[in-house]
């Protein structure tokens, strides 16, 4: 029997698993598939836009969190307080530095510590919009639009997931000096069928990246920085980045594009390797399908076991001292729904703050600045990240929740996906460590 049983291997689940394992707990992680890191940009977005100001990006996210306290008391950041968010981010930054995939902010690396004045980065997106992100892997930092160098965006002819002309034109429309250029895709691969992961693996080979670097040097004008699709190596990324920058003689940065996300895969693999070294098991292909609980009866109930399903065996029962629900919300598959408008949490059937009526879920425009109500709800928790009922009482004494499943935020629209995952995963891990120590 493990101390902590984590359901979900996204950023929140892995952050909680790391926090608990480092404190000495025995941790098991199960996941149906791979987390949403594989889809996302690989940055740490803490707060890009607030519900109050959706047209202009937040300049200082940790300050913006403090400002949420009055308007959005149910927001997970408000439950934690900005100080805890900051501590969690510092933990994450230290961990990633240790893992050789360093994340930095607007002030560079390590500038975070004990500072609430960290500015958001503004990084060019694959359509040439500016993405607010608080931390980014070193491969994306040179894309910060606060930097003065003009941009050369380089694509590959025939690569279906990256359009440098579009990026350069939109950056120019926003007042930046940017131009586009193409290189032949044959520099990377001769394969007829390929995606970004194959191409990244091609750049794990030094000979290929040196050749690419030489071509980039030929293209770049003095003083330019070079933006490339985010596929600069997968397993040998740090060396790929260094080799390319040296060979090109210019700062190089990655622009994340359509899934699968190579930056997200690097992050996942780094965290997984760290957890493996701590003896944490991660079972992929196990889907949490239900739980046995002692129902709340005036006081908090208890989770007895969690049941998982696989395609290859009968359902399995898992017992632990503590359970963490980190299955994500709708995106992660943690909630399911049907045509009658019923929407439910799939493992513990926890109450959701989402209206049980389909006609209340959506607004007329896909890009409605106010977002869609169905994506703003989820599992309500207290400050210790324990799911609570409508009366605010803890539902199960040994159950915690973190990440995309939480109510009170639309992390995709507010650009807070990773920040919420890290902060709530870390906080839940801390709370579990404290609870089991008692």
């Amino acid at each position, binding site marked *: 029997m493990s101390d902590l049983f984590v359901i979900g291997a996204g950023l929140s689940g892995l952050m909680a698993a790391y926090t608990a394992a480092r404190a000495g707990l025995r941790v098991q992680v199960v996941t149906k598939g791979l987390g949403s890191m594989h889809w996302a940009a690989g940055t740490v977005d803490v707060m890009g836009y607030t519900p109050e100001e959706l047209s202009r990006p937040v300049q200082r996210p940790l300050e913006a969190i403090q400002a949420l306290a009055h308007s959005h008391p149910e927001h997970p950041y408000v439950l934690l307080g900005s100080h805890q968010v900051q501590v969690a981010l510092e933990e994450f930054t230290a961990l990633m530095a240790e893992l050789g995939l360093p994340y930095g902010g607007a002030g560079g690396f390590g500038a975070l510590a004990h500072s609430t004045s960290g500015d958001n980065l503004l990084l060019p*997106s694959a359509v040439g919009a500016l993405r607010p992100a608080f931390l980014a892997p070193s491969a994306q930092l040179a894309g910060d639009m606060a930097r003065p160098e003009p941009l050369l965006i380089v694509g590959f002819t025939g690569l279906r997931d990256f359009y440098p002309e579009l990026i350069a034109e939109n950056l120019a429309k926003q007042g930046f000096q940017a131009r586009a250029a193409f290189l032949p895709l044959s520099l990377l691969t001769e394969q007829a069928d390929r995606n970004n992961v194959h191409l990244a693996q091609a750049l794990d080979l030094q000979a290929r990246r040196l050749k690419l670097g030489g071509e980039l040097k030929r293209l770049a004008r003095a003083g330019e920085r070079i933006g490339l699709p985010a596929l600069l190596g997968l397993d040998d990324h740090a060396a790929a980045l260094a080799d390319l920058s040296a060979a090109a003689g210019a700062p190089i940065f990655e622009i994340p594009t359509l899934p699968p996300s190579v930056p997200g895969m690097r992050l996942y693999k780094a965290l997984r390797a760290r957890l493996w070294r701590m003896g944490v098991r991660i079972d992929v292909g196990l889907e949490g399908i239900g739980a046995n609980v002692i129902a709340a009866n005036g006081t908090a109930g208890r989770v007895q076991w969690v049941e998982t399903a696989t395609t290859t065996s009968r359902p399995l029962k898992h017992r632990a001292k503590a359970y963490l629900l980190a299955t994500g919300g709708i995106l992660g598959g943690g909630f*399911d729904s049907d045509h009658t408008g019923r929407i439910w949490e799939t493992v513990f059937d926890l109450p959701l703050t989402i209206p049980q009526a389909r006609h209340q879920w959506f607004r007329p425009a896909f890009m409605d600045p106010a977002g869609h109500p169905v994506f703003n709800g989820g599992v309500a928790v207290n400050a210790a990240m324990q799911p609570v009922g409508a009366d605010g009482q803890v539902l199960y004494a040994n159950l915690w929740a973190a990440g995309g499943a939480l109510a009170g935020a639309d992390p995709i629209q507010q650009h807070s996906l990773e920040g919420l995952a890290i902060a709530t995963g870390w906080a839940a891990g801390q709370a579990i460590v404290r609870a089991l120590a008692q």
Partner: protein
Amino acid sequence: MKRIETEILVVGGGATGTGIAWDAALRGFKVTLIEKRDLTHGTTGRYHGLLHSGGRYVVKDPVSATECIHENRILRKTHAHCIENTSGFFAVTPEDEGPYPDKFLEGCRATGVDCAEISVADALRREPLLNPRISRVFEVPDGTADSFLATHATVQAARHAGAQILTYHELMGLIIEGGDGNRRVVGAKVRDVAKGMDVEIRAQMVINATGAWAGMVTQMAGVAISVVPGKGVMVAMNHRALNTVVNRCKMPADGDIIVPVHTVAIIGTTDERVTDPENLRIEPWEVNLMLEEGDKLVPNLSKARVVRAWAGVRPLYQEDYAGASRDATRKFALLDHKERHGIDGFITITGGKWTTFRLMAEKTVDLAASHLGARKPCVTATTAVPGADQGNYWLGHRLHEIEEQKLQGQLICECELVTRAMLENAAKQNPLLTLDDLRRDVRLGMGPCQGGFCTYRAVGIIHEMGKAGVWEGDAGHQTHAAEEWDVAYIQSPARNVNGSGSVGDRPQQQGGSVGDRPQQQGGSVGDRPQQQGGSVGDRPQQQGDRPQQQGDRPQQRAGQTPPLFNPNLLLRDFLQERWKGVAPILWGRQLKQERLDELIYLNVMNADHLPDDQLASAMTDFYLFDTTPNEHEVHP
């Protein structure tokens, strides 16, 4: 203001209008067709895709049934590549007991609809997902049709015959001369929507082929006719489920048919009178009803993923009829306004259904010819449109070609197997106002992710083409566009490789005859009438103004990059257009899919914070999903 002179002005770019343009041009008339949006924007592009055998009407509407089977046999030849030969079942489910099945058999015999009763065991062997509790099954020659492709093919045939087709040209008013009792329609005021320009079209005959919108057009001549838009809601399931069209064997009712079209199975339909044919709400109860009824034919079909819901409007015409929408006749109505209202030069054709479009066109042009002076007789029943020589469409053709030619790396829409070259050729030869126009051409974004991946790619590719000057400068390119673009292969990955298009390897088959009858009049390229078409008012005739060669999309002129061609607007419009059709069916896995699309576009791309966010196209508002509260939440 631009002026165009023609003999026949056709209003409406659906199946009927384009069929009229084709027929009239083949008979030697000078024809101009206007459509306010893209081809098939109205009812033709929003129906379930059934090629009727007539079986649905044998009891209720025998005249329609006979028309259907007659036209079914013709279209299988003239538009062969637009049709999948699925066959059709009429199945008696446990809820359909009673005398109807025998009446149905009798009706088939009386109306000439081929029908054979087959054993339930045979039916289940062919369609294993069919409800095993059915008691009887009748097989009829139903099929399915790609109405987008068919309309394109008809238009290409019409163009070859000299017709001028103008999309995004909206009718603003009719030009009427003469006083009471002696009035005559002599043309129309038209708005070029894409260019924001007025156009005056003078014609000896205006044919109103606007279907459910027909009453609005006759109002412009001060005439009221009773065309009631009958809304039909359809849902497309992610699984094709069946390879045969399956109908319930009972009086036609809501949700009683499942039509396998391309990669999806479509459950249809509802039927409700509405007042506005343009803005159609989809209520939760309507979607739920389709799913519940679909389950009666294919148990648990509702548990499959729904990819989309949409609504079309039937044009229901019945004089002095005020009953239920479902019971109005589906026969078409041809109205000679001279005879009825004393207005010369004006004909309305409405009612009917896709399957009978060619017949409707024939009768309409017969009537027009009786006023204008007859030319050649109708030959559309024996004239194949370009591409028909390929034979019937089959589901696996794209995958087969992609695997044969190893085109996997070229795919930009993995759901519907659209390659980059297919998109480029469609965009090059058929310049667009929105990506939705290209969707109809190549099925871009019609699969389970509903544009999640291909929207970004398509916008990037179109933008690169614009940067490369594909639509600029070269007047010769534009001039020959309509000639060169062979829609016959628009959906073929193998025929669109490396941007070469189908130009070079196009076989010499346009407009050939079908059946065993020798080609007699018109129809083939060789003997098509050599008319110039559309003289241009007060301006000297220029190459670029030769209407039949100009291409039907207006906005790409030398040296101009129209604001409508803004990539950020293309992106926003298409995402919103896809949203309109998924919002009514978002739950379960499709809701998760939509959240991934949000992650991509709102987060990774941050496309909701791009420049030019105030720009709007002619279609922007149309794509909004109507969520205004409605008190009719339950089935009335």
